[in-house]
């Protein structure tokens, strides 16, 4: 089916995502598919992933590249750099190239090589600046490592750095969260993603919660933490542009903006998702199955769905509304063919009345009050 010379999938949108399914250890809150790297012959997988890249017509269409996971920085330098160079080579017009790294897994050398390899954005998995919290989450590094990683990244020439933070960790309070926000802001990074801790099925954290060994932060405090995030980061010059994402100036993550615009992207690697020509497909998450499929020239896709017009319109609305700028009515019409004001007349009317949605010219967006309870509003846009 696939292979050199046969028909490839066009990407008429922007993004290429590469998923590295390995980690050194599994964090206690993580439900992503990843396997301990020590058990695998990563070289074979890296080869397969590069082979999969051949199936897509990349080239100048691809504007953003993102290597995530798992932990890309758990790969050997050689393997990681190989992925970077193979991706960069195939996407000469890329404008934003992000690699996710973990504190304690990078050093000056690697960071310089990433820079020269074409990576121009770094996403560092900081999570917390309180050691107890890092230990609780099972992160395996120190607070010092975070600061060190940022410093090294600057030295290596990165001028676009993002930090991930987690709030509402059991035991946290509004004050401790404020401390984290300020510590992160003090590092003068260009971008912060702040996520509320979620208890996913199958994680160690969920088991502890179910066994009453730990207690979740209460709802009111969690909400207060979220509101504090928006305000504190704004004070530090990082404006909220999506429910969980904050950026200085124009340093929004363009790769993710593509998701929220419901644009197209190709996903490489086990468990990676692509959205091309109205069809969303996900590769098999099983590393052996994936590798076998790719090397034998068959499809590595495990699940796929092709969306009809209405479904696509609903997804676009839901994704758009995650952005602070919301739905752009003109963009929406162009992308889906529908008039959002008509298609979603009822929920828009209801939420306008309740002050949870606002309309300003061609923008329809969630108000500040709505952000913390966005899902209860978005569900009304999920189906017409």
């Amino acid at each position: 089916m696939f292979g050199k010379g046969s028909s490839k999938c066009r990407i008429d949108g922007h993004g290429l995502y590469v998923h590295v399914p390995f980690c050194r250890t599994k964090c206690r809150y993580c439900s992503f598919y990843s396997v301990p790297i020590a058990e695998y012959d990563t070289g074979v997988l890296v080869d397969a992933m590069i082979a999969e890249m051949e199936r897509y017509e990349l080239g100048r269409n691809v504007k953003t590249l993102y290597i995530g996971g798992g932990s890309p920085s758990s790969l050997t330098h050689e393997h990681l750099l190989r992925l970077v160079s193979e991706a960069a080579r195939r996407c000469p017009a890329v404008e934003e190239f992000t690699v996710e790294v973990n504190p304690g897994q990078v050093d000056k050398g690697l960071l310089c090589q990433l820079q020269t390899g074409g990576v121009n954005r770094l996403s560092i998995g900081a999570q917390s600046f309180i050691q107890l919290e890092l230990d609780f989450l099972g992160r395996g590094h120190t607070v010092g490592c975070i600061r060190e990683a940022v410093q090294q990244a600057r030295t290596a020439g990165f001028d676009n750095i993002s930090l991930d933070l987690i709030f509402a960790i059991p035991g946290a309070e509004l004050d401790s969260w404020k401390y984290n926000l300020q510590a992160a802001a003090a590092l003068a990074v260009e971008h912060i993603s702040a996520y509320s801790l979620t208890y996913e099925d199958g994680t160690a954290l969920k088991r502890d919660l179910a066994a009453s060994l730990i207690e979740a932060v209460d709802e009111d405090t969690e909400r207060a933490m979220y509101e504090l995030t928006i305000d504190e980061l704004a004070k530090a010059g990082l404006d909220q542009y999506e429910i969980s994402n904050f950026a200085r100036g124009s340093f929004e993550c363009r790769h993710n903006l593509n998701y929220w615009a419901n644009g197209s992207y190709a996903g490489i690697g086990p468990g990676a998702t692509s959205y091309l020509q109205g069809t969303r497909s996900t590769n098999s998450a099983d590393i052996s199955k994936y590798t076998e499929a790719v090397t034998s020239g068959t499809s590595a896709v495990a699940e796929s769905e092709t969306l009809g017009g209405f479904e696509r319109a609903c997804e676009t609305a839901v994704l758009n509304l995650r952005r602070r700028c919301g739905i752009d009515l003109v963009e929406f019409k162009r992308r889906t063919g529908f008039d959002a004001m008509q298609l979603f007349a009822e929920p828009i009317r209801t939420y306008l009345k309740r002050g949870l949605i606002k309309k300003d010219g061609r923008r329809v967006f969630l108000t500040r009050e709505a952000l913390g309870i966005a899902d209860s509003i978005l569900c009304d846009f999920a189906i017409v």
Partner: protein
Amino acid sequence: MLQYFFWHLGRIILMSTEQIRNFSIIAHIDHGKSTLADRILELTGAVSEREKKDQILDDMELERERGITIKASAVTLNYEHEGRKYMLNLIDTPGHVDFHYEVSRALAACEGAILVVDATQGVQAQTVANAHLAVENNVELIGAVNKIDLPAAQPMTVAEEIEHTIGIRKNECFHISAKKGTGVRELLEAVVALLPPPPDRSSEPTAALIFDSHCDDYRGVICYVRVFAGRLRVKERIRFMGSGRCHSITELGKFTPKMTPVDELGTGEVGYVIANIRELADVTVGDTITDDAEPAQKALTGYKPPMQMVFSDFYPGNNTDYPKLRAAFEKLTLNDASFSFAPHNSPALGFGFRCGFLGLLHMEIIQERLEREHDIDVVQTAPTVSYDVLTKDGMTIRIDSPSELPDITKVAELREPFVRLEIITTSDSIGDIMKLAESRRCKLLKTDYISGMRVTLEYKAPLAEIVYDFYNVLKGISHGYATMDYEFVGFEKSDLVKMDILVNKVAVDALSLIVHRSTAEARGRRLITRLRKSIPRHQFEIPLQAAIGGKIVARETIKAFRKDVTAKLYGGDVTRKMKLLKKQKEGKKRMKSIGSVQIPQEAFMSILDSAESE
């Protein structure tokens, strides 16, 4: 006088009315009525061994599942006794307290009945109730103590109970085991020997009683008839005396148990009439069929129209399903003449139907059939009873929903329905049962020991207090031993008030109820608490209030939820997240909107609390 009929084996046999016996089997639930019917069908050859399926007469899947008979069914059997041939018409009857009417209809078509009592259980509430119905309808009783094969059987003791409560002499009771077949032949012989034949009125103008009906998809309405006078002949033009309508008989027959056509049904016979009638509504059970050319002077008497005791409003979960719900109800009435529905509009819930039932079991059966056969989501209000309102200007209005209550300033008196409640139980539960009854405003009329360990308690009870879960609670506190039966006695004045429920400051008519003043406030508080637990949190705070005559007697608040947002939504998350959001939306749809508050089905039923279930 001689009549002709065709036997199911094709033989023509001449018989007189003297050779006919019309009888029923009556019993408390699970005392073996249906097993006995099975045995009788086997013994008389109506069903071959191969065709045998336990409890053949229980048609509907639902009936079989619940182990109860909902519809009456009739079977014509061959029997030979002392060299003579007899035609036995066996009519099966329901045993549950809700279906008095169906039992009485079946009994009116009979001259006799076998009263079956379980030898391990003794006389129970429906044993007594059914026996009374039989006597009211001039039906001769033969007593049969059943399940004598069981180790716990006490046939002599039970026979004594029967003598004490019903009056059938104990040494005249038959001891049988329907399961094993013991004594069944003797019982059948007694049916022939002891039960009277139908009177010979063959020379009178035709009069046949419709004691049941059923709508078949292909053949239309099938009327179950008992011919009292004259005869019915196929192709004849008949008149339904109650409705005045005329039809031609297209098919006439008997159940053997399969439908077997005949040319004629004579005096004393039981069978079916098909007359190209499409709508069950066109056939009134209890009506008399007569010959259009030579009609009878008077219709047969003895029936009361079914009395509906319990009412509930049904609304389609989705407004667009309204026609579907109506069609479903229409289909349900095809085979249930005692269920009724009428369009009803609630300011809170929109367009729906006010439905009337014989009792709670009847309502549950309709609910299940609605779900099982028609797959519609409904929102249903809690079942209520009717009330009589005496207004200040002397009018009496019957209301079957609290929202119909006129302005309180116009009301002089409120009356609620009372029943005579009979409970049979073991003496060790008397104390708890009496406490239960007292807590439900029941007044003890009589106690009677039917045997050393068992007692009958007779109460005058407000129907409203026992219509919902009294039976279940009774079963619980008596460890399953108690049985009950009730009979409507009339509407009486009571100190009743109307309690309104306000959700988000708006009175929801579907939640309001009529309660006795003595328990109103406590009831209100419990109700508000239950509502708080069953209404989900919303984007805004929701005050819940119970009010009586403008005075708030209970108040609670449902807090708004503060967090409902997904932290991460990137490419790989979209499929899963969209599914979840759609599910969230579907969840909302299954509720009723009252203003901006979504109220789930459970909330409407929560107003039926009882202190015991807290």
